């Protein structure tokens, strides 16, 4: 069966420090991968998505970047965190086929607090 791992679960970082959040998927190949941010426990903002290795699409200009160095690995990074980067970050995957119809499977999330 497919599983998605996201870590760390919580993170407290000072302003100006770098960030690296990692997400890996097991049990599937060539998944579509997504990074979302959820502010104040409400709406989901799509940050990045990837349909293949090295293919990254950015939805919102910001202080963050994403990379996909391996088929089932998706990394969210920042060189210098801002206070406004605080939030709950969620990774998700979906099957990368035209006939896929099962929506997303989400990771357990990372609570980032920038101080």
């Amino acid at each position, binding site marked *: 069966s497919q599983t998605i791992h*996201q870590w760390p679960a919580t993170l407290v970082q000072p302003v100006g420090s770098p960030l690296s959040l990692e997400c890996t998927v097991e049990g599937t190949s060539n998944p*579509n991968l*997504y990074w979302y941010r959820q502010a104040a*426990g*409400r*709406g*989901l903002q*799509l940050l990045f*998505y990837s*349909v293949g290795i090295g293919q990254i*699409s950015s939805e919102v200009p910001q202080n963050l970047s994403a990379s996909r160095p391996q088929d089932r690995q998706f990394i969210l990074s920042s060189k210098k965190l801002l206070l406004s980067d605080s939030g*709950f970050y*969620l990774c*998700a995957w*979906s*099957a*990368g086929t*035209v006939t*896929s*119809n*099962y*929506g*997303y*499977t*989400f*990771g*357990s*999330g990372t*609570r980032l607090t920038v101080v």
Partner: protein
Amino acid sequence: AQSVAQPEDQVNVAEGNPLTVKCTYSVSGNPYLFWYVQYPNRGLQFLLKYITGDNLVKGSYGFEAEFNKSQTSFHLKKPSALVSDSALYFCAVRLSLSNDYKLSFGAGTTVTVRA
């Protein structure tokens, strides 16, 4: 473009009463529709989906949803709510033939079930 609206920020019901969480969508084509639930500091969990076929879809934890094409709605329902159903609920939509499989999420509805 695709979008989802959840017109109610909050829904409050007494335990044992029926629960309805509203969702309307807008897509230029055939939609795939989903409901997710989120408990505090957790990732989103899949509840149910509509892909094609019967307009009444049954999902996890006794939830069901009815696809209404003429009203472009996909309301989530549960005949008898439990206190443990208190959570944040998200409706999502994507085009059936999109090649990036991006889901558009509603802003979420907080459900509170009182004992």
